[in-house]
């Protein structure tokens, strides 16, 4: 198999009028790296003909911090706090995947209480992430109200995290062998209140944005990603499921206590921006369902099964584990040489692949549609660059 690498010749501009009836000339324009619609320091190099997008070339590296390399120079416990900073809206899931692999490698057992709390926290984080995304897509489509409402509802979830964990964004909560600290006495009560609060709000989201005729016109049949393309780009999460592939690791390889709960996987039919939008809204309802089934049944037990001060030294070998974040599959690969630091620490992050399908699906649409499509992909830039 060979890969065609683009050369500069491929990118030079055709002469005026080459394939345009209006004798217009194509031009390049930079969107980003400082642009509110790219949600971070992502630079999109656009080849435009008037307002029509001919080509999108994502340029990465503006927030590369070398997390994998730093991870190779940190002990296994220290790597956890680094992965908070990948996809900061799925910080707990990122913590979980590294902990999962380290636990598997070092043969650390956890108990039911830990797994219950981890699952509840992960679903809360998914809700928190999706409410924020819902607000942001509203803003990208030109409506500022959803942005405020999304952030307002997210605040309740963030308060739950703050009370139990002590941080709102970079939490470092799920650690090899358990959790940083036990749930706060108020946690169960607060979470139930939050769910009761959120359920009518999701209906409100539907009335305010999903049902809105303008929003639907901006999303339906725009940026169609076929199931084949979605799979060959390696997309995961809501982006893949919107294309009609019901691939969800929570169902397919249940981790935590997902095997014990009833929920449906939200899938789309056409793979357009609308499906990517509505799949996430449906996912919020499923997350509420999952937490409701678990919150009353948290078993008793310790919150940490190993001594924190003791160094973790997994036996030599290669270890891999993956799970479903709010944006797709995050995989963690660790090569251990038996020392207290990983020999190789690699992360497969969902947003990198999810971003790249933009190069295909944004072609031919207007700039305004590009913003809508990019927003429906829900990319978080630090996760792409790492």
């Amino acid at each position, binding site marked *: 198999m060979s890969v065609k690498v683009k050369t500069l010749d491929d990118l030079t501009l055709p002469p005026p009028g080459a394939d345009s009836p209006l004798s217009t000339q194509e031009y390049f324009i930079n969107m980003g790296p400082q642009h509110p619609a790219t949600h971070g320091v992502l630079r999109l190099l656009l080849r435009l003909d008037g307002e029509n997008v001919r080509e999108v070339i994502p340029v990465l590296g503006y927030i590369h911090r070398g997390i994998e390399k730093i991870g190779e120079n940190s002990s296994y416990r220290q790597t956890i706090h680094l992965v908070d900073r990948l996809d900061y809206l799925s910080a707990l899931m990122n913590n979980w995947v590294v902990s999962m692999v380290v636990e598997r490698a070092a043969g650390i057992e956890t108990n039911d209480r830990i797994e219950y709390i981890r699952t509840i926290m992960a679903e809360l984080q998914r809700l928190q992430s999706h409410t924020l995304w819902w607000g942001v897509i509203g803003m990208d489509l030109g409506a500022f109200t959803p942005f405020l409402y999304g952030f307002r509802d997210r605040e309740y979830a963030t308060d739950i995290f703050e009370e139990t964990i002590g941080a709102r964004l*970079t939490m470092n909560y799920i650690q090899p062998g358990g959790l940083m600290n036990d749930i706060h006495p108020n946690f169960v009560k607060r979470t139930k209140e939050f769910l009761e609060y959120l359920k009518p709000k999701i209906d409100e989201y539907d009335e305010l944005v999903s049902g*809105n005729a303008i929003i639907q016109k901006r999303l339906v049949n725009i940026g169609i990603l076929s199931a084949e393309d979605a799979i060959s780009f390696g997309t995961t999460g809501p982006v893949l499921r919107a294309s009609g592939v*019901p691939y969800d690791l929570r169902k397919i390889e249940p981790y935590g206590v997902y095997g014990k709960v009833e929920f449906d996987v939200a899938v789309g039919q056409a793979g357009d921006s*609308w499906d990517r939008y509505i799949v996430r809204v449906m996912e919020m309802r499923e997350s509420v369902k999952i937490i409701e089934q678990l919150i009353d049944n948290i078993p008793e037990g310790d919150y940490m099964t190993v001594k924190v001060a003791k160094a973790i030294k997994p036996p030599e070998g290669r270890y891999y584990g993956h799970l479903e974040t709010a944006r797709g599959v995050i995989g963690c690969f660790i090569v251990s040489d038996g020392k207290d630091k990983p020999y190789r620490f690699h992360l497969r992050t969902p947003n990198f692949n999810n971003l790249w399908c933009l190069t295909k699906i944004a072609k031919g649409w207007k700039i305004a549609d590009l913003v809508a499509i990019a927003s429906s992909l829900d990319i978080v830039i630090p996760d792409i660059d790492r």
Partner: protein
Amino acid sequence: MGLVNLRKIRRAKQEIGGREVAVVISPRPEQTRLGTTVWQTFKSLLTGMKITISYLFRPSTVVTQQYPENRETLQMFDRYRAQLKLVYDEAGGRLCNCCQICENACPNQSIKIEWTKNPDTKKKELERWIWRMDSCTFCNACVQACPSNSITFGNEFESAVYDRRLLVYTLNDKAGPDAKVWSAIEDPAEREKLMRKMDRYSGPIPLSGTSLPGNPSGKEG
């Protein structure tokens, strides 16, 4: 093409990788007559409007903290991690015994513990407990690692300063022996003799005209 009927969510089973998965399938736009579409469009706009207007009359759902106006009443959660602090026992003795486990646990080398050995007692005595807030990521690893629970995070979050070097803190205000030695001595005057006063900061003199040492960033620390 008409609007999407959001209630039309189908439940089904789909196969993936030889497994049956229960799915909910997204609603799609329906074919409707032009008149219906126009009517639905107006209705959808009015429904959205109704929600925004209704918030005019129920502003109780505002979650924004009116900071800094509510500075007096603002309650942080007690686990909130903001400012690292040393823990003292009831007699005022410092629990930290300079074992330096936290220093090794810190992923960012944000902790440096300087100690001296007392030639008489052959015990470690703390000189400076230096915390570099500028490189701290508030990961809590130090607090978790400390075997004697001698450090904790307080929730005083107003820590902005004008010079990065002012974020280097000396956490102990007195240098000297730890609580074991301190609390064994009954006489308060004798105890005080063992301690030397420590300034809060002793790095290079910062820019921006702030006077040092002892009173960084102009506010009483």
